[in-house]
């Protein structure tokens, strides 16, 4: 099936938030902190601006609680006395003329008495300055399996290493945007570019202190999210709503690119230390992993990002003794947040780069080391989950190596590189990615979805899951059509609007197709069952008969609607206290292979070929599924090679597309995607989650290929030419 909403997108008719205009609408703008930490002393409004024409909102104008509700209430909507990061919002302005508004923003001077700030994870842990809570630590986890400490002395080989990843900007091409309308009579309504309508809803309920039904959140066509529109839209919706509430008019707020880049969330920077004990025959005996992420100034989603990163840190390997310690620490950077992969790309990069180094130290090839340690069906993961899936990493690796001609190339490159200015390398990564919320997350979410037949003879899917390019509308249409036994063109997907659709949980965590899609499938089966039982529908029906039966049913019995709520599988258990158990109901398994060439004069790296082999259950839509992997691989190439956030005193210096570089059409190799399909019993039509997976394995495959090409001991991404040049000097020395 072709993309459901595709026609509007290829003709330019699709309406994104900036394409909408309301009568008498104002524009809104944010005045932000110029420094990372300090005490607000005074706010000066400069001359030459007709301030009486402006709506001005400060913290004291907030009707309810001054915070953005998410996990804990630590992030203010508007800084009141203290600022904790650069670009923290302090003041909001609205005016009909957006050009005058920009002049007004520049005319506001905020006088802040600086306080000492913390900019690195090391300084945060040193605790010379406490910038959050009692100890600068948002969250820590400990996973223990067996006893790692018994092995260091007796092991044949112990390999250590430390690995770092930088911040990464989501860089959706549509910047954040929101329109709000608010009044005593109507309550608050926001329209916007967002992933999670019910997150925004929850934040506005608390901000205004209104009952739930007085807040309405509508998603407009969303031009990419990748996690960047998971939690931040709650902030922007809050700002637009406050201006709308005070002015009594509709207020539109659209960030320009620079504001979007410097002020909104990014992927958490990370540092991971590995210590690994290996036997003479290449068995990994113990893995001791210390994983740390920089959460920025407020907690936001850091505990859950940390959780996913922690659980993925030991990879798809069977090892009797594992310890993973992890911490999310506070700094005075803008809060880091959700970005596709959610902590896993960081810890997977560290592990897969480390294992290539372990292999080298053990005198084994990278593939042989993995082969001797791959997890198999029935093995237990570090956090106590027994894997009952038919996992076969060797088979995936075999297929990936066959598609890339891995062995022949590895040998050929090694022979040809000597004396060549362009050195070639091939590397790979092996990894898993859990789909759905971690641990007991899905149980707490208790998501809902519904199907409804209309008197006009159509079936509507009601879910809070958003379309942001990944294909929600198409996938839900296919799943519903299949479950009902009718044609796809008889299905409508209701635009997520909290006044219409149930809370299906957030559109994150590779959960939309697998978790919410399953609810859609169940609702479809129940609706079909209802019709069959009523005998208005006879087996062997076609679409026309089905919809005719719906009409008859509605005439006779009233509304025909089937609503389904998530039920956690009874055999899956997670213990939040011990942080042990079945972390995810299903995993995707993958081997990614990258081929690179490195120009030794300029230290530029080009990815020449990329093969992604994965087992993701049954593929529902091959074009969309491959599109997810290809796009994720391109983002992973950016993470590995180009996307470097330059920080100075907690501010992003390169907040422009001119100097923050994402891959262009010239930079991506042919990305060849292969699926192994083993139907997953609990997924809709046998499908597992797919969205985040490609971010995990791309960067380490590329880093391993660079190491193979050059001998450089890559420990940190992105591997920009500057970084690589320095490393190459060590190789030659």
């Amino acid at each position, binding site marked *: 099936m072709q993309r459901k909403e595709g026609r509007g997108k*290829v003709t330019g008719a699709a309406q994104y938030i900036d394409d909408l205009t309301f009568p008498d609408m104002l524009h809104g703008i944010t005045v932000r902190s110029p420094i990372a930490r300090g005490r607000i002393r005074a706010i000066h409004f400069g001359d030459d601006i007709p301030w009486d024409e402006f709506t001005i909102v400060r913290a004291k104008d907030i009707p309810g609680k001054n915070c953005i509700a998410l996990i804990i209430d630590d992030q203010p909507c508007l800084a009141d006395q203290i600022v904790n990061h650069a670009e923290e919002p302090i003041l909001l302005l609205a005016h009909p003329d957006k050009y005058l508004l920009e002049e007004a923003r520049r005319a506001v001077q905020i006088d802040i008495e600086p306080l000492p700030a913390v900019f690195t994870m090391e300084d945060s842990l040193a605790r010379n300055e406490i910038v959050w809570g009692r100890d600068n630590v948002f969250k820590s986890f400990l996973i223990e399996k067996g006893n790692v400490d018994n092995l260091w002395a007796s092991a044949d080989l112990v390999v250590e290493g430390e690995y770092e990843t930088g911040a990464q900007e989501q860089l959706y091409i549509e910047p954040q945007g929101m329109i709000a309308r608010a009044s005593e009579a109507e309550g608050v309504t926001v329209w916007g570019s967002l992933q999670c309508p019910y997150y925004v809803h929850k934040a506005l309920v608390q901000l205004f202190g209104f009952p739930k039904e007085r807040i309405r959140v509508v998603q407009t066509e969303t031009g990419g999210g990748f996690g960047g529109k998971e939690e931040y839209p709650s902030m922007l919706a809050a700002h637009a709503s406050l201006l709308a509430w005070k002015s009594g008019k509709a207020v539109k707020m659209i960030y320009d690119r620079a504001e979007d880049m410097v002020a909104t969330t990014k992927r958490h920077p990370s540092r991971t230390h590995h210590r690994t004990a290996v036997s003479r025959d290449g068995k990994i005996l113990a893995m001791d992993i210390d994983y740390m992420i920089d959460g920025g100034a407020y907690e936001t989603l850091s505990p859950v990002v940390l959780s996913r990163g922690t659980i993925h840190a030991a990879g798809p390997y069977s090892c009797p003794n594992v310890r993973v310690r992890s911490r999310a620490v506070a700094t005075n950077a803008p809060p880091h947040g959700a970005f596709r992969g959610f902590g896993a790309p960081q810890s997977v990069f560290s592990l897969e780069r480390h294992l290539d180094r372990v292999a080298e130290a053990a005198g084994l090839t990278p593939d042989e080391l993995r082969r001797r340690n791959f997890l198999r069906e029935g093995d237990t993961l570090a956090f106590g989950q027994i894997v009952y899936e038919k996992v076969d990493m060797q088979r995936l690796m075999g297929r990936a190596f066959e598609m890339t001609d891995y062995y022949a190339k590895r040998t050929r490159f090694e022979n040809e590189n000597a004396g060549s200015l362009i050195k070639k390398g091939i590397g790979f990564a092996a990894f898993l990615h859990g789909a759905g919320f971690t641990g007991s997350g899905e149980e707490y979410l208790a998501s809902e979805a519904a199907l409804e037949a209309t008197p006009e003879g159509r079936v509507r899917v009601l879910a809070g899951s958003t379309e942001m390019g*990944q294909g929600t509308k198409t996938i839900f249409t296919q799943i519903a059509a299949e479950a009902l036994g009718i044609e796809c063109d008889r299905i409508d997907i209701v635009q997520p609007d909290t006044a219409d659709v149930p809370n299906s949980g957030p559109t994150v965590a590779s959960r939309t197709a697998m978790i919410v899609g399953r609810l859609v499938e169940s609702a479809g089966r129940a609706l079909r069952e209802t019709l069959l039982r009523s005998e208005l529908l006879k087996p062997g029906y076609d679409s026309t008969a089905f919809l005719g039966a719906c009409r008859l049913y509605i005439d006779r019995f009233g509304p025909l609607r089937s609503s389904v709520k998530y039920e956690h599988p009874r055999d899956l258990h997670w213990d939040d206290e011990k942080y042990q158990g079945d972390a995810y109901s299903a995993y995707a398994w993958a081997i990614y292979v990258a081929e690179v060439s490195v120009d030794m004069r300029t230290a530029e790296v080009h990815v020449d070929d990329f093969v992604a082999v994965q087992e993701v259950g049954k593929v529902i839509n091959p074009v969309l599924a491959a599109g997810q992997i290809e796009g994720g691989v391109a983002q992973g190439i950016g993470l590995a090679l180009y996307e470097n956030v330059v920080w100075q005193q907690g501010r992003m210096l390169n907040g422009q597309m001119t100097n923050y570089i994402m891959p262009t059409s010239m930079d991506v190799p042919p990305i060849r995607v292969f699926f192994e399909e083993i139907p997953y019993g609990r997924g809709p039509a046998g499908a597992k989650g797919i969205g985040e997976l490609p971010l995990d394995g791309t960067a380490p495959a590329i880093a391993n290929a660079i190491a193979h090409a050059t001998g450089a001991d890559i420990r940190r991404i992105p591997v920009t030419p500057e970084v690589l040049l320095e490393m190459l000097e060590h190789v030659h020395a």
Partner: protein
Amino acid sequence: MRDLARKIRVSCRVNGRAAVLEAYPMARLLDVLREQLCLTGTKEGCGEGECGACSVEMDGALVNSCLVPVLQAEGTEILTIEGLAGKRLHPIQQAFLAYGGAQCGICTPGMILAVVNLLARHPKPTEAEIREGLAGNLCRCTGYTKIFESVLQACRESERGS
């Protein structure tokens, strides 16, 4: 200063129709198209000529409309995404639909115009020519793979058709 500038009238043709635009001379063509003509298919991604989401054709050349002051539009022929399809979709639009060239859709109007512009210059482009022709249009969703495929398939189908 803004208030010293006078609005000017700019006559041009947009999507085959005569248009008279009234705007400050340095107003961005992007804003004038979107706000005065309500042609919101042209998108703003960066405002600095990097992303290409605002691409339109001006006298047959692909331009970033965020970098074009409206005074330069005098007497020109402008094509936006809204002017591409007749009763049926343009073959490139059709190919993007069929082969997954559009995901979130925000780069799509600019990308499709870049393809149309490329094919006018290279009716049978090589993969290298496609890559180069689209290098000014950023896409964060697709990794470009399905965009290349959409272009190649559209070319193949037009060969079969001709």
